[in-house]
């Protein structure tokens, strides 16, 4: 990395929000890698994955040491087996937590007037969608926020909202939250269906903050 960043012979201190000088493309590249170049856009894409007849998708580099809050979008989730959720499990230090230890509480409202409260203190996974049908145009879309994944002293939380169309063509709006009540570092996120496969586009973002 250049010492000067546009100043010769001075070397002003560079930091996010406080850059001085005239920058070459290499300077910008180096400063960006050093997290010292002002380039607003704190919703930072970590990775987009596309599921095509997959039984699971794993984000294995979620940069939990950088972000306190993660944002996941789920687009056009379509299971091969009728009435399947897109479920979430966490990996703690590389080991999948598959026990009945997750908790969630959610409410859904259906276009047919159905309203229900759903909750569990011993679930095997969290949710990003509710049950989706396997026919044409039966899909689920939504988003989740995850909190504290990289903090070994804190539980890992989720808030989410999604909409789904079930096998009988009833639309549901669903919102809720979840938690893995274990103080641990979560370093991978797995999205999966309990049977069959699914198609889907998944994008994981980090919400960056600069102190």
């Amino acid at each position, binding site marked *: 990395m250049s010492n000067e960043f546009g100043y010769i012979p001075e070397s002003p201190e560079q930091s996010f929000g406080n850059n001085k000088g005239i920058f070459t493309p290499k300077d910008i590249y180096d400063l960006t890698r050093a997290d010292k170049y002002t380039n607003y856009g*704190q919703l930072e894409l970590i990775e987009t994955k596309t599921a095509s007849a997959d039984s699971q998708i794993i984000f294995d580099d979620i940069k939990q040491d950088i972000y306190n809050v993660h944002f996941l979008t789920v687009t056009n989730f379509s299971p091969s087996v009728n009435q399947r959720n897109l479920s979430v499990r966490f990996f703690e230090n590389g080991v999948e937590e598959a026990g009945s230890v997750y*908790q969630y509480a959610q409410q859904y409202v259906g276009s047919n007037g159905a309203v229900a409260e759903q909750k569990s203190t011993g679930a095997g996974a969290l949710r990003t969608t509710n049950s989706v049908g396997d026919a044409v145009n039966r899909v689920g879309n939504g988003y989740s926020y995850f909190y504290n994944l990289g903090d070994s002293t804190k*539980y890992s939380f989720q808030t989410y909202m999604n909409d789904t169309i079930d096998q009988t063509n009833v639309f549901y709006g669903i919102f809720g939250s979840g938690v893995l009540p274990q103080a641990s570092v979560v370093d991978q996120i797995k999205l999966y269906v309990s049977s069959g496969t699914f198609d889907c586009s998944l994008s994981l973002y980090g919400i960056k903050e600069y102190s």
Partner: protein
Amino acid sequence: MAGKLVQVATETVTSAVASVTLTGIDSDDVYMLAFNNVVPSTDSVDLFCRVTESGTANSTANYDYAIKLFRTASSFLNISNTNNTVFDLGNNIGTNTGEATNGIMMIYNANNSSEYTFITTEFAEFNSSPELTSWTGGGVFTSNSSVNGLHLFFDSSSNIASGTFTLYKVV
């Protein structure tokens, strides 16, 4: 710059403080507050929020809100209030291991002095029971004024023991 979050203000609490104030709302854009790992010094207290005008928290009775509270071990609740002096952002937040609140709050029309300031909320907390509690809904500050920030504090004069609060502009 389109389609991004721009950080406006942030504060990470590592030693107890009475409150956190984030300012910098100066445009008609939508703003977003993200907070995580927020823990009180006193067990079982609510997290409150007031808007600031020119940096000063407004404590008048102009806060209305309607919330759906989901709980994993108890029945769900509808929580509403009109002409309150605060937005209530959480319920009985605990201090034991793992107990904390986390969430996203979107803020609308804050800078516009001819409109009320609206919020939508989605929070997940582990309360003092302990029990997972989800806090989803919205609120409105019923004053035609220019709001430039948020003032966050706990009920019962509890300090904020820890937490990260970041205010973004959605552009």
